[in-house]
C-alpha cells in the first residue's frame, strides 16, 4: 500500500493507505479526527470541508494519496491554545448552529470565504457558502455569525509574528 506523509493540524502523520481511501475517511477512521463529517455521497453538502494547503476542499472528493506532503487543517485545529477562532465564536454568539452536524464544514468554508473577502455583504456570504448545506438554521443566523466574525477579525490588531 502507498505510504503518505501529511501534516494535519500542525502534527505530522505517516500512514499506509489504500489508494482508493478518501481523505475524509483517512481523517475520520485512521486519524480519529471525527469533527469532519459526511452528509452525502455526491460532494453537495460540504459537511466534510477542510483546508488543504490553505484552501477549502471537500474531503470526500480528494483521495488520501493526493495529500501526501500537504498540510491539512480540520475543525479540530482551528482554535488556538483554547481560544476560539472568531468564526467559532460567531457561530456560538449568533446561534449559527442547531444540530451542529454541518457546522464544522460550514465554519471551514466560511474561513476560506473571509480569507478571500474580509468584509463580505450578506449576499456575498450567502453565495460564498453555496457549497454547504444546513437543514436546521435556514441560514439566517449563519449569515449573522459570519458577519460577526468578519467584523471581529477586521477590528483585531494584526498579530505581530
Amino acid at each position, binding site marked *: 500500500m502507498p505510504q503518505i506523509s501529511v501534516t494535519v493540524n500542525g502534527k505530522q502523520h505517516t500512514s499506509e493507505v*489504500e489508494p*482508493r*481511501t478518501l481523505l475524509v*475517511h483517512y481523517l*475520520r477512521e485512521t486519524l*480519529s*479526527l*471525527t*469533527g*469532519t*463529517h*459526511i*452528509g*452525502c*455521497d*455526491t460532494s*453537495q*453538502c460540504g*459537511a466534510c470541508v477542510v483546508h488543504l494547503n490553505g484552501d477549502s476542499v471537500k474531503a470526500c472528493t480528494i483521495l488520501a494519496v493526493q495529500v501526501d506532503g500537504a498540510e491539512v487543517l*480540520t*475543525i*479540530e485545529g*482551528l*482554535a488556538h491554545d483554547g481560544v*476560539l477562532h472568531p468564526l*467559532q465564536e460567531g*457561530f*456560538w*454568539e449568533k*446561534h449559527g*448552529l*442547531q*444540530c*451542529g*452536524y*454541518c*457546522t*464544522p464544514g460550514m*465554519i471551514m468554508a466560511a474561513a476560506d470565504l473571509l480569507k478571500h473577502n474580509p468584509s463580505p455583504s*450578506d*449576499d456575498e*456570504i*450567502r*453565495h460564498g*457558502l*453555496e*457549497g*454547504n*448545506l*444546513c*437543514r*436546521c*438554521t*435556514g*441560514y*439566517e*443566523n*449563519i*449569515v449573522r455569525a459570519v458577519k460577526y466574525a468578519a467584523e471581529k477579525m477586521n477590528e483585531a490588531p494584526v498579530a505581530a509574528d
Partner: protein
Amino acid sequence: MTATEIKERIVGRSLKRREDPKLITGQGQYIDDIKLPGMVHAVLVRSPYAHANIKSIDTSAAKAHPGVVAVFTGEDMMDINPMPAAWQAGGVKNNAITPRALAVGKVAQVGDPVAIVIAEDRYVARDAAALVEVDYEPLDAVVDAKKATEPGAPQLHEGAPGNIVFEWDCGDKAKTDAAFASAEVSVSEPIINQRLIPTPIETRGAIARYDAATSEFTLWITSQAPHVHRLLLTAFVFGISETKLRCITVNVGGGFGQKIFCYNDMAFTMWVARKIGRPVKFIEDRSENYQYSTHGRDHITDAEICGTKDGQISGLRVKTYANIGAYFSTIAAGIPTTLYGRIVTGVYKIPAAYCHVTGTYTNTAMVDAYRGAGRPEASYLIERMIDRFAVEIGMDPAEVRRKNFIQPEDFPYENGLGLLPYDSGNYEPAMNKALEMAGYGDFRAKQAEARQNGKYLGLGMSSYVEICGVAPSAWIGLNGQGWGAGLWESANVRVHLTGKVVVTTGSLPHGQGLETTFAQIVAEELGVPYDDVEVQWGDTQGTPFGYGTYGSRSLTVGGTAIKRSLDKIKAKAKKLAAHMLEANEADIEFEDGKAFVKGSPDQAKTFGEIAAAAALSYSLPEGMEPSLDETSFYDPPNCTFPFGTHISLVEVDAATGHIDLLRYIAVDDCGNQINPMIVEGQIHGGIVQGLAQALYEGAVYDEDGQLLSGTLMDYAVPTAAMVPHIETASTVTPSPVNPLGVKGAGEAGTIASAQCVMNAVIDALSPFGVKHLQMPATPERVWQAIHGK
C-alpha cells in the same frame, strides 16, 4: 421597585447555548464517530426494482471474498418479527403491513434490502455486496396514491386489497353536503402536496453489541425516541424483556421526524451482533437515506370550499389520497388522519366540514412524519382555498381571513372535527402585525403600478394554527385516535450534596437547544447558578422513560415534567428549611435560592445549605427521607395550539418564470418563550423547509418506481443563496394548558410557509388568469402557467 423586579431572570433570556462549544470545535459525538473494539461493518444489498419477486439469492462469492465475516438474507432472520405499526388510523380497520429486517420473497420498493454483508472494513463490505447475485422477477409498479386504488393496479400486499391501508373520515358529511347544496359560492381545486425527503444532514444508522454472558444488547441509534425504540424492538420484534436492551443516542445530526421511527437496521444490527458475537455498525449513505428512510407529505386532494358572496365561509369538503409508501412505517397512519383531517379548517370558524382520507400502498419509500407532520398539509390546503375563495368573490384575502377567524372569546374552541379544543388564541393581532410589517396598506397600489411596467409582484399570507404538545394519553390512546400507547413525559431532578443539580429527561434534543432551555427553567425555579445545572438525556439506562422529541412537545410536555419535579423539590426544601430554622413551614418563603421566615430574609438558609442537610441527613424532620431527588410524570390535559401569520413578497419574471422571493415576514405566537434566540432559530429553520417545498423540493419517482431525485444532486435542498432574509416578530398568548405557559415552536415555520409563498406566487400570476399552481413552483412550471400550458 420590588426585590423580584431587580432579580435578573434567567427564563426569557437569550442565553448562548451550552450545547455549542463541543459542536463548534469538532468534539461532538455522532453515531458514525463511534468505534467499538472488534466492530465489523454492515453493507446492504438493495433492490434495484420497485416491485419484484425474489427468485434466488446467491451469496457464495460474497462469502468467499477476503475480509468478509458473514452474509445473511431475510430467510436467516425469520426468528424475529416484522417491525411494529405503532400508530394506526383511529377507529377504522388498518391493513398494516410492516417491513421485516430484510425483505423475504419479494421486494416492494427500490432500495428494499435483500441481503446484508458483514466485513472487517466498510470498503470491503461494499466490494462484497456487489458480489451477491439476486435473481429478480420484475413486476409492474405503481407510485401514485390515487392510481394505486384503481382497478387493475399492481397489488403490493396480499393483506391489503386494492392497496388500501385505511379509509378514515372526520367531520359531519351530511351537514357539509347540505352547506354546499345551499351555498352562494363554491370553489373546488385539486391540491397536490408533493412528496418531500426530510434530509437531516446526518443520515441514519445503528450500532449493535451483544453480551452473551448476560444476554444483553446495547444499541447506539441516531434517534428522536430511544425509549420507544427500546420498547418496540424488545417487546414486539425480538420478544425479549426490555431490560435486555439499552439504547444510547449520542448527538443527532438533525431529525425532522425521520429519526422518530423504528427501522429495520436497528433490528438487523442487533440480530447480526447476537449471531456473530461482534459489534456491528451500519450507517446509511445519502442515496440509501433517500431511497429507504422515510419521506413526508405526498397527498393528492380534491378540496372544495363554499360560502357567501360577502366572504362568510360556510363549508369545507376534502377528499385526500395519502401515500403511505411500500410498507407501513411506525406512526404512518396517524399523520394524515388525526394530525391532518382534524385540523383542516385551520384558524377559521367553519360551521360544516368533512374530510375523508384513503391511505394507500405504492412502490415508493415509506411516508411518515416530516416536520409539521399532517399540519403543513392541512394548513396548505385551507390557506390556499381561502385565497382561492377570496379571488372568486373578489375580496381582499386579509379581509376574508379577518371575517372568518375564530375570535378570542371562542376559546376553548371546538372545531367539530374530533380534535381537542384549541387552548387559546388571538389571531387578528398577529395578522395585523404582519400586515403592518409588510406595508400592506399601499401594496396593492404598488403592485398595480409595477404591472404597468411589466413587473409581476405578488403578496401571499398564511394564517396558521397547529397542534403541539401532543398529547393527553387518554385522548390520543383512546377514543378513536389509534395511537397505541401514552404520550406523557417524565423527568428526574436530583440535587447533589454540593448543591449541583442533575436533570435526566426522556426527551431527546437533536438541535433544539433543550439542554439550555431546561437548565434555564431549573436555575430560575431553584435559584441556583445556571452553570450548576446539568441536563442529561439519550441513554435509556439512566434516564426516565420518554416518548421522545417530535410534535413540538419537548418543552410543553417534557419541560413540564421537569417543572413538576422542581415543585416537589422546592416543597421538600421548604419543609427542611423550616426544620433548620426552627420555624413553622407555613411561615417559610422560598425565593431566589433562599428559604427564610417571612419578614426575616437575613436569617436565610441557602439552597446549597438545604441540599447538603438533605443529603447528609444528620437532622431531618420526622418521617422525611434523605436527599432532594424527585421524579415526575406529566400527562398534559390538552394539546397546545400555536398560531401566527406569515407574509411573503415575490416578483415573478414573466419571461423566464423565475421567482425572486423579496421578503419573508413571520409573526408567531408560541406562548411564553424561555429562550427567544432559540425560538427564533426554530422559526427560521422551519420557514426555510416550508418555502423550499413551495419553490424547490420534490421527490420524484418515474412510473416504474425509480427514484429520480435520489441524491442531493437531484433533490433541491436550498443553499443559503436560494433563501431570503427572514424578518421575525412575535405575539405572546400564554397557553393555559401547562404551568410554563408554553406552546411549542419547532414546527410552526414549516406549517406556515409553503402556502405563504405559493399564495404570493399565484397572486403575482393573477394577471395571467392563474388561480392555482402545484408545488414546487419551478421556473418551468411558472412559465407554463403564464403561457396557459
